[in-house]
């Protein structure tokens, strides 16, 4: 299969008049049609720099980027725009423009100097509007949409370019949680429905790990780890990438939690959601929840009727988790 995007010994970074400062070197990447790639890493490590270099918004320091088989340096702006659509973090401020006309702007690389809209342009625009589920928004004014709707429309505009590759730099940055999940879900659907490759940088790590086909993980020290999310998790790279902070990565749940456990160990008896929520309360209050019965640990029973703690030579119980949390906080002040 031909790669939609391929890099050869790429180095990205900044150049001033005399110096070149690379944030990432010897990068050999390939993105295939139908793949959703999530780019992960802490802030300021160079995710945007890499994406901007892949999109030719800044030059590579060394090495090359190939898009659909041709070197980025050898193609014109128009040719590039026909292969590559871009969605950026920046909020677009445009007064008074309908969604359809905004999506129509994506036809720029396909239309002539005078921008005469042809039938094939119209077809592409309507298709793009449908693809991002913005049919009901088509006549609305773009500036009056919600942030999530706006990003969907901006993706629709990029799709109207009929690209083989879509690059998105933190498109979920301003969105609320449901919109984030929807947006990543939309990108995933797009890669499934057509041979489109998508590279997206995001801070929604857990969402990315659940959704991406491939993750590119920026490691401290300028290394880029790539692979299926599960392989990256198994190799322990995620824990390493974000280590040294007050959080710990839990591979089983593929999620981060605050480092806790300073209050000793605790065991939860019970099953189902109640048991898991009781464990969540214990963790929040600083207990390390274990499976084994600890000698001097706290034992919490989670039942249909509520919770019961049988330690400290006393027995306490309550109906809801608020009272459990209050009890645990009370123990902290007592001890």
């Amino acid at each position, binding site marked *: 299969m031909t790669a939609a995007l391929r890099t050869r010994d790429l180095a990205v970074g900044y150049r001033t008049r005399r110096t070149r400062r690379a944030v990432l070197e010897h990068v050999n990447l390939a993105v295939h049609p139908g793949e959703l790639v999530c780019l992960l890493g802490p802030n300021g490590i160079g995710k945007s720099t890499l994406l901007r270099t892949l*999109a030719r*918004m800044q030059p590579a320091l060394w090495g090359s980027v190939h898009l659909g088989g041709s070197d980025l340096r050898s193609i*014109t*702006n*128009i040719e*590039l*725009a*026909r292969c*590559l*659509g*871009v969605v*950026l973090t*920046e*909020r*677009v*401020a*445009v*007064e*008074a*423009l*309908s969604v359809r*006309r*905004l999506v129509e*702007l*994506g036809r*720029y*690389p396909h*239309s002539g*100097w*005078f*921008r005469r809209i042809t039938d094939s342009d119209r077809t592409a625009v309507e298709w793009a509007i449908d693809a991002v589920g913005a049919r009901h928004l088509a006549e609305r*004014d773009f*500036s*009056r949409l919600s942030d999530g709707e706006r990003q969907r429309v901006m993706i629709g505009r990029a799709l109207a*370019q009929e690209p083989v590759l879509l690059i998105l730099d933190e498109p979920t940055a301003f969105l609320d949680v449901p919109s984030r999940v929807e947006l990543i879900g939309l990108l995933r659907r797009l890669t499934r429905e057509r041979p489109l490759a998508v590279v997206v940088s995001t801070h929604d790590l857990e969402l990315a790990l659940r959704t991406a086909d491939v993750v590119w993980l920026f490691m401290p020290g300028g290394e880029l780890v790539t692979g299926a999310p599960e392989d990256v998790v198994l190799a322990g790279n995620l824990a390493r990438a974000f280590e040294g902070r007050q959080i710990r990565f839990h591979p089983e749940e593929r999620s981060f939690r605050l480092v806790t456990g300073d209050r000793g160990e605790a065991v939860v008896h019970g099953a189902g959601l109640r048991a898991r929520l009781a464990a969540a309360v214990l963790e929040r209050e600083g207990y390390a929840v274990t499976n084994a019965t600890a000698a001097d640990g706290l034992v919490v029973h989670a039942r249909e009727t509520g919770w019961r703690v049988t330690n400290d030579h006393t027995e306490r119980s309550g109906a809801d988790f608020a009272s459990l949390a209050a009890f645990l906080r009370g123990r902290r002040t007592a001890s």
Partner: protein
Amino acid sequence: MTKREAMTLVGLVTLLCVVFLLSLVLGSTAISLHRVLMALLGTPSDGTSAIVVRTIRLPRSVTAMLAGASLGIAGLQMQTLFRNPLADPFALGISSGASLGVALVVLSSGYGAAAAFGSATGIRGDALITAAAIVGAALVLGLVLIVSSRIVNPTTVLILGLMFGYAVSAVVTVLVGASQPERLAQWAQWGFGSFSGVTWQRLQLFGPLTFFGVLIAAATTKQLNALLLGESYARSMGLAVRRARLLTMLSASVLGAVVTAFCGPISFLGIAVPHVCRGLLSTSDHRVLVPAVVLMGSAGALFAEIVSLLPGSAGVLPLNAVTSLMGAPVVVAVLLRSRRGVVVG
């Protein structure tokens, strides 16, 4: 084009026709519409009114329309390019450059010599002023363009233009401070602005210059539309951003400079007309905005001219004052009406 947009354009054409005829009818003395039409159609008739219409009012009105359309288009280009609602044709210091040229000619002690040179070579005083304004504007424009070609951020270019303008204005103020009262009067006269100074003969230069400037804008609507989303997005959609920016700044500035040179500094038309058209049409699509701005700019300039001539009286208001008094409230109203108040650049 939606039905609303088509209707609005038709409305603007009608408005322009009405104001155009009004500008020929009204003046220090009113000439009946019948006589105006006869004069226009070339019917040999009553001598004086036909001469007044053909040699005074018609060139004045044509000048007003060309100037209004030019300033409106240039303002639209600058507002889109810089994504700033307060950008206008003079944002890059063009009018300051023109004033410097005029100030040097009118106020400096060399004026006597220049006038002598002018009369010797057959160039009249106002033609000399026009030439000076063009040279001044071109110098400032060239300087800004050279410096701005090294700058990536468009907002920086805008600020650069403003700073150039301030610096040049300061030089002009120094010249004004040091000059003699009788020369100040002539200087002030130019600063008032007027469409009356452009005769048929001078229209032969003014007409084509402004026409081609507007034509460039009309031919680049696609590029202007791409710029609506900002330069990064425009580039990602295949626009050669630097070239488009240079072409847009050049055509807008030349339009501003030419109008300033021939008619004096005319404020607010360039800012107000694009805002009014956006408000009327509820769209930022340049395929509709460009024709609307041409029509509205022409009508607005004609209207300002009619008001400044105080129909029925011998007095005249400074044109610049009329456009400011008309334009400022319009800009305020448009900005207050828009949801966010100010478009974020």
